[in-house]
């Protein structure tokens, strides 16, 4: 016998025909084709007959077969006023009658939408960084790449030689403007008796011609023409001069030099990655500080160039690649390249010289997460709507019998989900208004809801549409496909496939939530690891005081005064923040140096008691000590440096740093002088006879208050012009991981939201199941089932789903978080307990949610539930 399934005409083709052929022609056409098929099978075999059949079906794709005969009944308008009124009435009754379910849906949806809204605003804000410059597409910053002997780029940074910008502009015709921009400076400003500390930068002369920091007063070309010119922000101008014209007025900087205000710029927008309240001329700064433009192998300030509008980036990149070597033959390990200035904020992580990531990764990550949270909320809607479909089956049946076509029912149900989404959307805008201040304080932004801009309203409409579609389309199609005969006969029951689908969705929800929980926990653990890791120097009870004014000159007397008080253990000066060293050189000379020994070594200038104050352990030798007169010409190396210099016995080795000759007096154990994203690199500490940077003081444990008073008093005596300000090393260290802290806060928020919304859905489903099984539970109780057995019965179904979600989520989360941790050179382990804990957490919360309903159901008196039988 022939297998009837295989012998028949191809199913797919048949389906296709049924789909496209006009109903009034279908019978004869399909009959004819089948008849021909039967003949073909006997003539040419099944395989060929099937092909022919398919071909024949396709040949019916002709207008006459596609064209539907117009109905003999007048068409019913889709939106008649009466029907619309009815739809709205029914939708409202459904909302009002099932308050619990409506609540779950609306709250869930609005939480999901709040998430999406806030993240959308955040992403927009991040993307807007540095995009406001009119010449944005021609602005590039110079990136310096360190080349290893193997030819690979090991490291890329924006610190460039100070001399670079001027010479680039002179020698590369494509570069029309170039400016050096220094790091942020904090300077003391004084006008008359008014004095404050202000943040500013020292920038090249082309600065205002390149960037769109609009000058309110002054000419961008000549603004730095006079020596000691100062350009200040509108804010500063108002602060110091009120409504008077600030041009030509004097401001005293650092109680030393008088500067003339030569221009005023509009306050720098929040979405600029460089922020400043004043700028001074780099060219005149360099005249007094020749070290900054001295040499091609010292990397400090950044350099930004503007290309001519007809220049090609590739050509310029090729020209400047070997620029440093061309000007200084000894610089063989550095190449230059350009990065679009407007990308610098989002793409700051380089791999092999190519910007691959940075904040953009978080932007992407959180966009996905926001979408997921919204999806979880939509799933709640889908699940509850399909689960409760039985309740509406009769309505659908009647509607169909009195003539509703499927399309009208789909419209009706989509309309209902639109109503729900609209309520949720208005609620979410309200919630966003309430939550934004908190969000802004976490992320340090000033985001507002731009309800008055058409672009935002457009995006909001898109959000509402997407949410409506995501949550409404499946229930609408599902509900409208009920067969009225079955429904009205009372023999209606949903297919088991639907229940499986719902379970799948619940598993999906919990998988997402669990992944978020695991993610948040890993971020927490890593942050904890960073903050408690022994980084090789101790940060506890250490504080930094900026060396400014007279403090540098009178450091010795300050030191003596505070040490006498017996509250300060040790005190030293360091020219940078010891956990954030930012200057490097490759100019170091030692006796056994080979021409191939070329690498950057980070620089730190310190004075006596340096190692003691920071608790840096010395492997060999000693730290700078006043007992040895020659120590002022001494150097300390870290282990990595000694290794890279191939020094077996570094102590006593002569070293030449920029002509400063001395010997190595100590070998320090490695400590982290930079963020834990980076591995420990070579470091040399030289003696700084004239203290610069910061005073670093170690306070005796438990005497913080007294010590601060002593320090303040001494500071006031020696440096009365400046207010006493200090920073704890711990806080400064934490500040370095600000973006990770933000990520941690946000990840936690999202994880909590996701699990909350998922549980809302679970709660709804559990309530529904309990309601459905009321009779069953009654019968079981009558027959002697215990309360606990009924609770188990009702809860296990849901627990299974959560357990399945744990199994799925763990490897996915492990993979993602493992990738995240790759960014850190020093990282915590992904230990099993994180997964166990998040699993337990999820199970616990789910159990709590479900058991509320199951306990309620189990405790119901069976007399009540069975009374009506």
């Amino acid at each position, binding site marked *: 016998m022939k297998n009837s399934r295989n012998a028949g005409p191809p199913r797919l083709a048949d389906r296709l025909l049924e789909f496209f052929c006009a109903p009034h022609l279908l019978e004869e056409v399909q009959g*004819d*084709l089948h008849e*021909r098929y039967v003949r073909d099978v006997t003539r040419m075999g099944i395989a060929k007959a099937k092909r022919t059949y398919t071909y024949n079906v396709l040949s019916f794709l002709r207008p006459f077969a596609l064209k539907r005969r117009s109905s003999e009944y007048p068409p019913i308008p889709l939106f008649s006023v009466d029907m619309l009124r009815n739809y709205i009435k029914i939708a409202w009754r459904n909302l009002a009658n099932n308050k619990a379910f409506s609540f779950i849906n609306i709250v869930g949806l609005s939480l999901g939408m709040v998430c999406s809204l806030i993240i959308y605003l955040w992403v927009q804000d991040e993307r807007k960084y540095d995009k406001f410059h009119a010449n944005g597409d021609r602005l590039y910053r110079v990136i310096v790449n360190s080349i290893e002997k193997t030819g690979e780029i090991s490291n890329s940074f924006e610190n460039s030689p100070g001399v670079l910008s001027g010479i680039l502009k002179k020698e590369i015709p494509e570069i029309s403007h170039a400016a050096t921009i220094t790091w942020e400076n904090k300077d003391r400003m004084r006008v008359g008796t008014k004095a404050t500390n202000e943040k500013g930068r020292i920038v090249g002369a082309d600065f205002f011609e390149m960037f769109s920091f609009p000058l309110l007063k002054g000419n961008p070309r000549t603004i730095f023409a006079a020596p000691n010119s100062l350009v200040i922000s509108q804010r500063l101008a108002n602060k110091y001069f009120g409504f008077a014209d600030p041009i030509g007025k004097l401001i005293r900087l650092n109680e030393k030099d008088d500067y003339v205000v030569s221009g005023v710029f509009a306050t720098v927008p929040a979405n600029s990655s460089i922020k400043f309240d004043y700028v001074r001329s780099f060219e005149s700064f360099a005249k007094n500080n020749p070290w900054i433009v001295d040499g091609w192998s010292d990397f400090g300030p950044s350099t930004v160039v503007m290309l001519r509008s007809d220049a090609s980036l590739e050509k310029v990149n090729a020209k400047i690649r070997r620029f440093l070597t061309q000007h200084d033959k000894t610089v063989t390990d550095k190449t230059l390249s350009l990065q679009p200035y407007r990308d610098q904020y989002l793409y700051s992580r380089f791999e092999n010289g190519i910007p691959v990531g940075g904040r953009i990764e978080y932007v992407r990550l959180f966009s996905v997460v926001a979408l997921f949270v919204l999806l979880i909320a939509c799933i709640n809607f889908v699940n509850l709507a399909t689960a409760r479909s039985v309740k509406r089956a009769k309505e659908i049946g009647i509607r169909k019998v009195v003539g509703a076509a499927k399309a009208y029912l789909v419209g009706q149900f989509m309309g209902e989900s639109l109503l729900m989404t609209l309520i949720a959307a208005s609620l979410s805008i309200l919630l966003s208004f309430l939550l934004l201040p908190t969000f802004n304080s976490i992320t340090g932004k000033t985001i507002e809801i731009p309800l008055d801009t058409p672009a935002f309203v457009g995006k909001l409409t898109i959000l509402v549409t997407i949410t409506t579609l995501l949550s409404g389309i499946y229930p609408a199609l599902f509900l409208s496909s009920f067969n009225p005969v079955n429904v009205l006969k009372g023999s209606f029951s949903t297919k088991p496939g639907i229940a499986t689908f719902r379970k799948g969705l619940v598993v999906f929800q919990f998988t997402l939530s669990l992944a978020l929980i695991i993610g948040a926990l890993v971020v927490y653990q890593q942050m904890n690891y960073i903050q408690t890791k022994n980084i090789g120097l101790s940060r506890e009870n250490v504080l930094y005081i900026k060396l400014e004014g007279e403090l540098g000159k009178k450091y010795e007397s300050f030191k003596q005064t505070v040490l006498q008080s017996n509250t300060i253990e040790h005190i030293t000066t360091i020219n940078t923040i010891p956990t954030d060293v930012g200057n490097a050189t490759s100019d170091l000379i030692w006796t056994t140096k080979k021409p191939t020994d070329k690498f950057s070594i980070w620089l730190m200038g310190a004075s006596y008691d340096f190692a003691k104050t920071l608790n840096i352990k010395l492997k060999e030798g000693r730290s700078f000590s006043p007992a040895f007169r020659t120590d002022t010409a001494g150097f300390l190396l870290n282990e990595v440096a000694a290794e890279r210099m191939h020094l077996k016995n570094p102590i006593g080795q002569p070293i030449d740093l920029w002509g400063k000759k001395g010997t190595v007096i100590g070998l320090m154990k490695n400590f982290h002088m930079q963020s834990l994203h980076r591995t420990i690199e070579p470091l040399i500490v030289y003696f700084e006879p004239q203290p610069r940077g910061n005073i670093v003081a170690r306070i005796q444990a438990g005497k913080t208050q007294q010590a601060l008073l002593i320090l303040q008093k001494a500071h006031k005596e020696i440096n009365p012009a400046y207010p006493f300000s200090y920073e704890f090393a711990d806080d400064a260290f934490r500040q370095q991981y600000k973006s990770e802290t933000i990520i941690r806060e946000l990840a936690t928020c999202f994880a909590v939201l996701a699990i909350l919304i998922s549980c809302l859905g679970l709660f709804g489903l559990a309530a529904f199941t309990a309601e459905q099984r009321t009779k069953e539970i009654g019968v079981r109780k009558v027959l002697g089932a215990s309360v606990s057995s009924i609770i188990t019965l009702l809860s296990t179904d849901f627990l299974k789903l959560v357990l399945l979600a744990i199994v799925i989520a763990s490897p996915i989360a492990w993979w993602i978080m493992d990738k995240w941790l790759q960014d850190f050179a020093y990282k915590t382990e992904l230990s099993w307990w994180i997964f166990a804990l998040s699993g337990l957490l999820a199970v616990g919360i789910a159990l709590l949610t479900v058991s509320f309903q199951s306990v309620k159901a189990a405790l119901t008196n069976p007399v009540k539930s069975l009374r009506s039988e």
Partner: protein
Amino acid sequence: MKRTYLGEFEEIVLLTVAVLHESAYGVAITDELDRQTGRSVSISAVHAALHRLEEKGMLKSAMGEATAERGGRRKRLFTVTALGSRALHDIRAMRDQLWSSISPNALPAISI
């Protein structure tokens, strides 16, 4: 005289319907066409022509009996209407008239 336009294929299909008399439906017409003219045409082309002819009022149709090989689906049986018959006759008359007007030596002889 009002002319009825019939395409060549339509004319042949119309004739075939007449040939098959009361058992003219899609597949049968296709087969008959194949046998009589040696033209292998697709069923869809025949259906399309039948549909057009019916719209022009030269054919009328009714559902016939179902058979097992058709999966229980009925055939649509076509019969030629008076208008169809008139059209066929017109065409034939016109052809005959033309043939009779050809002088004996005008066409090159075809020897068999």
